[in-house]
């Protein structure tokens, strides 16, 4: 039976995902069109995870503007954003509230244009109701809209140029590591969105973005398009389809097999051999997995996350030798049934609690901490938001070195659970 309430949800909303995706474009600002609380929540949560305020603004619909179908609050928020932030791109992200009223993004853009507001900024309406889907869906939707609207420079295809469309579970440092890996094969990889600007201390009002709108416009000249996560399949295939470029979806980007996948992809595409250093790192990872395999074998983990993330982490833990018992995903999504675990359900932290008996390792965002505490298990913090530990955005699990570090963290976590 489906329980009639939700206790301790860890689901993040579609509008939050869409706004986060746009935060990954330099100079972008998102207006969340809902009650004031909708944007305040998203803003506070991302600030606590990234330790930087995100470029998200509230529109603050009120009863009157809602009833009268009046867009004045949007115009006012837009004027304030233009005045304070001088954005190059403004996202108009709807919420459940504006969707219930009826959200016509194109009409809103026309109204803004006819008033001469934000003449220097590109506008991108995104319909992302929060009563449906989760943040990976909102993120994917925003990336699709972004590429559809802008990636059409129609310049000649550039063979050395690779486009990466990451799911939001990749940390900014993960994305940087993929860039470095591609560079080792002489490839110029551009990620969209790219949140790694959040790692640099810039102006308080700068976005997290490390990719320009101009670079996104020219993204269709990429000779290869790589998507990470099942949710990015549509955006990846659509971008690649424009110029007939080859495309790949990597659903398990971490670990030995995952890194082998990246290297094979880049090697085959570039025609260059892998640097010898990678071979050495690979052997070290294998040694560690062999030497410390006994720490992982026979242990059971439970995971709370969105579908793409849970798939990647369950695959990685399985490679180390743990068995994955329950996986609780925040929202239903494609690829859910493929997660390598004993049981996969849509639910909340209470559902995780009821399925985590006998687990020594809980994997999830800070919200899962209570479960770990009650069960005497360790918490491996993954996902969004992580508010009780610094540095999640700086942590890369990509490559053989990243996998090695994550394997050590899992071992430490298991060890600490044993002692307590």
């Amino acid at each position: 039976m489906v329980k009639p309430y939700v206790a301790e949800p860890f689901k993040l909303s579609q509008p939050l995902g869409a706004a986060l995706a746009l935060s990954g474009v330099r100079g972008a600002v998102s207006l969340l069109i809902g009650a004031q609380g909708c944007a305040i929540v998203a803003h506070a949560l991302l600030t606590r995870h990234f330790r930087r305020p995100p470029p998200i603004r509230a529109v603050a619909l009120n009863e009157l503007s809602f009833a009268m179908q009046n867009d004045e609050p949007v115009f006012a928020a837009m004027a304030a954003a233009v005045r304070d932030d001088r954005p190059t791109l403004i996202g108009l992200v709807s919420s459940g509230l504006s969707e219930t009223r009826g959200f016509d993004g194109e009409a809103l853009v026309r109204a803004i244009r006819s008033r001469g507001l934000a003449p220097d900024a590109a506008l991108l309406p995104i319909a992302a109701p929060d009563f449906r889907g989760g943040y990976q869906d909102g993120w994917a939707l925003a990336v699709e809209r972004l590429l559809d609207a802008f990636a059409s420079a129609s310049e000649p295809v550039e063979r050395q140029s690779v486009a990466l469309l990451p799911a939001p579970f990749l940390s900014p440092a993960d994305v940087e590591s993929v860039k470095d890996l591609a560079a080792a094969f002489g490839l110029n990889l551009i990620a969209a969105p790219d949140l790694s600007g959040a790692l640099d201390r810039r102006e308080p009002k700068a976005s997290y973005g490390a990719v320009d709108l101009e670079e996104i416009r020219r993204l269709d000249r990429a000779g290869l398009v790589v998507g990470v996560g099942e949710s990015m399949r549509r955006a990846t295939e659509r971008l690649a389809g424009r110029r007939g470029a080859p495309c790949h979806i990597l659903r398990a980007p971490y670990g030995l097999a995952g890194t082998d996948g990246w290297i094979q992809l880049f090697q085959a595409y570039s025609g260059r051999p892998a640097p010898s250093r990678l071979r050495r790192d690979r052997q070290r990872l294998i040694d560690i997995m062999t030497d410390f395999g006994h720490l992982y074998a026979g242990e059971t983990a439970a995971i709370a996350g969105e579908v793409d993330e849970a798939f990647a982490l369950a695959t990685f833990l399985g490679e180390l030798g743990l068995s994955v018992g329950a996986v609780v995903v925040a929202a239903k999504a494609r690829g859910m049934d493929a997660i390598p675990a004993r049981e996969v359900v849509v639910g909340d932290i209470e559902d995780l609690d009821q399925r985590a008996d006998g687990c020594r390792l809980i994997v999830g965002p800070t919200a899962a901490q209570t479960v770990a505490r009650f069960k005497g298990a360790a918490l491996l913090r993954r996902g969004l938001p992580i508010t009780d530990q610094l540095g999640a955005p700086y942590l890369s699990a990509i490559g053989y070195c990243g996998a090695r570090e994550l394997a050590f963290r899992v071992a430490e976590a298991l060890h600490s659970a044993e002692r307590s």
Partner: protein
Amino acid sequence: MALQPITDALHLIHGPDTCLGHSWESRPTQSAGSTLHRLTLSTGVSELDVVFGGEAKLGKAIDALIARSRPAALFVYQTCLPSMTGDDLAAACRAASLRCGCPVVAVDAPGIEGGKLWGAQRAADILVDEVIGTREPEVSTDRDVLLVGDFNVAGEADHIAALLARIGVRVVASIPGGGRFADIAAAHRARLTLAHCSQAIGDLAAALERKFGVPYLQASFYGARQTSDTLRAAAARLVAGGAAPELVDDCERFVAAEEQRLQTRLRPLRPALAGKRALLLTGGVKTWSLATSLRDLGLDVVGANTAKASPDDRRRLDAALAGAAGRDLQRWLAEERIDVALGGGGARLAATAAGAAWVEVNHERRRSFTGYDGMARLAEEIAAALALRDARTASVACPW
């Protein structure tokens, strides 16, 4: 938010999960006993409920939750979406109350109708109209007080109760922080209300006086001077209301001893604090009492942000700062040389980027700044933040 700290009740949000504000840990209101209030619950309103209405779903959720946890009460909060689609929250809660034999209180204050202060006022009205006065206390003394407007962040309401206990005054209920539903229901028998934060829960203190004749006084426990003043005033009012007159002498003895102890503890810190330029970015609440405390510690309060302060707070602040209160954060940071900024999360980055030390004093704080010990802790934190800033400035230059 104003009611959620009531500890032995369940708090159910009728709306999409998002409306919970992803709130785990973000409001660390503590409890000495039950922690039911920390459970974040929603009815998970989905697309179908928007189309067909969510009342039936709400009823089922209430039944299941009362069966699950047997709470002292259940508060149900309306959100924008179901308020627009016309779910009748009050009717659903009345029906559930009768069905389950447990108080189910409807809180109809969706975000779209007003801001945080308006919601807090609604919360106060609901408590006065529907909760307070519905039960008689088991024991009642002439030294019973009611604490209103503290959220028990970092256990501050518990600290205040402990402080009052030292002079023989009993806190019968704290609203909302650390409060228990049954105590709040019997709160009308208290002899005095101490209104700690002026706007956290509307004008609850004044409403209690109007309806039940419980007098109130503005209380502050931020800073030694305010703490002493508040203790003295409370003792005098209780004695005027019939308590034994020794209370006043007990209070004086305690205040003298505590102030002595505090000065001893502050003495080594004073040189580091003297003349340092401070900026208050606390968003209004308790700004005026903090400003006074900082002055007492020897700091120079250059300015304060009053964007979220009530008119009453602003008047007190203007009096305390002689006109230094204003709004524009960026301008201060650019034009004034600020040594230390005190405030909440959002302004931290701007302040540290401008080279100021930072002390967290809003709801993310983990240490209590109330009472005499709180004043000492505040001084220690400011001194530590200043030392850290100086060390950081020195290490920026590369030695090789």
